[in-house]
Structures are given as C-alpha cells and as structure tokens.
C-alpha cells in the first residue's frame, strides 16, 4: 500500500511560472481528497495547529507563513480546447487514449470535458455509489493556456507615457554629459590662457623694475655733475 505523510504548508514561493501541473477532478473526488487530508492531518498530529504559530522556527519547513492576503490576488486561467488526452504509466507507456473530440470554438464560454475511466488494471476501486469508477480528467499541460489579466486602458496609457518620459530623460542625460565635457574642455583652455597671461604680466613687471632702476641710476649722476646749482640755492 502506498504511504504518505501529510503536512501543513504555510507560505509557498514558486520559483518558476505560476502554472503547475493540472488535473480536473469531480466534486466527490475533491471532497475525498479534502476529507483525507483534513481527517488524517488532525488525527495523526493534533499539535500541528499549535506548531503553525512557530513556523519560522521549524527547520523542516521551507516556507514562512504569510498572513497578508491581498485582495483580488486570484489570477484565473482559461483552459484551451483539448483534443486528445492520454493516461500513462510510470514508464510513459500509453495505456489508454481518450477519444478525439472536435470542439466548437465559436462558443468560448464552454469549457471542454473529456471523461476518462481509470484503467481496468486498477483493482478495488472505491464505489462512489453510482457503480462507476472515479473519473479524473487529465488535461495536457501544453494545451493549458494561462491568460494574464488585461491592463486597464488608462493604466496602459499612463505606462506608455511613463516609458516616453524615461526615454526623454535618457536623451537629456546624454546631452548633459556632452555639455559637461565641453565645459571641462573650455575650462582647461581658459586655465592655459590664464597661465600665459600671468607669465606675461610677470615678465612685464620685471622689465619695468629694470627700467626703473636704470632710470634711478641715471638721475643720481646728473645731480653730481652740477654741484654749483645746489650751492646757489642754499645761499
């Protein structure tokens, strides 16, 4: 007999696309699954519910408990029309093929259903009261299409405007960068010119100093050449 251990997950993080493998089950089967899970979980581990409050400390638990349920978080998927469904065993050998169903795609409100009886090699099928074996509809994953919620037209427009603004902003940034480079180049040139000007000014200053000193020397000699003039003034 197959054996399972039941557990109670808290937060589930999905690493890949949100679509898991799917099957469709009748209501009595889903009830059976629910009952099996709830009943066995309660009976086997009555303290599980207490442990849930300490989820973060559980070393065996790969998830943390999410208490914040966002509104409108449910994302519905729409199933494509199916044509063939097969039941395979572990070796992927096809043991039963469902009949091909040509579906009318004009009415998209109708979802297709193919009832598949569990193969006869499954003994001891639980009688659900109708003398029929439990039926599980198998839907090939490649025919399952998940549709995303369509964006609100206003939001879409806002998104497009935002994208345009971002593109413009990038352009302006490039222009600013270019201007910065030009400014730096001009600044460098100005510094060079200033250096040259300062050098020239220094040279002029030196020359002026020399001329001045030469002039002073010349003036001192002329006074000594005519000492009589000075004496006349004193008298």
């Amino acid at each position, binding site marked *: 007999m197959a054996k399972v251990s039941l557990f109670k997950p808290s937060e589930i993080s999905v690493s890949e696309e949100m679509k898991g493998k799917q099957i469709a089950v009748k209501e009595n089967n889903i009830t059976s699954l629910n009952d099996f899970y709830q009943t066995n979980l309660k009976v086997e581990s009555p303290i599980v519910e207490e442990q849930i409050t300490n989820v973060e400390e559980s070393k065996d638990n790969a998830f943390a408990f999410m208490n914040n349920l966002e509104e409108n978080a449910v994302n*519905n998927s729409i199933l494509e029309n199916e044509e063939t469904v097969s039941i395979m065993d572990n070796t992927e050998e096809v043991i039963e093929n469902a009949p091909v169903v040509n579906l009318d795609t004009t009415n998209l409100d109708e979802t297709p259903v193919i009832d598949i009886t569990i193969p006869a090699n499954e003994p001891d099928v639980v009688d659900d009261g109708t003398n029929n074996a439990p039926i599980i509809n198998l839907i090939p994953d490649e025919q399952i299409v998940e549709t995303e919620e369509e964006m609100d037209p206003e939001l879409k427009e806002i998104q497009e405007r935002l994208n345009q603004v971002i593109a413009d902003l990038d352009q302006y940034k490039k222009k600013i960068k270019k201007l910065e480079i030009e400014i730096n180049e001009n600044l460098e040139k100005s510094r060079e010119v200033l250096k040259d000007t300062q050098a020239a000014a220094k040279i002029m200053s030196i020359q002026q100093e020399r001329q001045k000193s030469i002039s002073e020397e010349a003036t001192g000699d002329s006074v000594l050449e005519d000492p009589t003039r000075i004496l006349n003034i004193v008298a």
Partner: protein
Amino acid sequence: MEDKVILVSPSGVKLERKLVCAFTSLDSDRPNIKNIPVIAVETGEMNGANYVLEFYWEQNGLYTPVNNENAWGEVKKTIIDIINGKMEVEGSI
C-alpha cells in the same frame, strides 16, 4: 477548516489558492517523488463540472511545477490512490 496558500513568483506576483491536499510520499515504489513535499491546490477554475487542481513539488526550498514527467505520473497515481482509499498515512508533520 479551509486552508489557503499564497503562491508567490520571483517577480512578486501573488496567487491565492485553496489547499486541497499536501503530502510527502514515503513509498519506495515512487522514487521520483519520495520524500518530496507535494501540494495540490484548487485553482478556482472549472472544467465543465470538474474542479481543476494544480500541483507543485518542493525543489531546492521552493515549490515548482512538477516538470518531471516520471514524477508527474507518480503524483497522479498517488492522488488516485488517495481517492480510491489505497493510502496509508504515516504520521504527519
């Protein structure tokens, strides 16, 4: 008691799902899913009069779609066994 789980994608998209069943197979005859937690969640979608369930299995600390075909076959067999009452429960976590 109704259990709900939140499926969170790396991009932050959250999907709320009703938990139908969560189990770990201990059966050596199902080596691809042995000791690997598997969850079955209700999508809220209907296929005619049937409920559509999604299945994820734990890989590297995260739940991912059961992308291994052998493992998927074993998951289906386990679900069929549960429905048919051919399942022994050994404790629970």
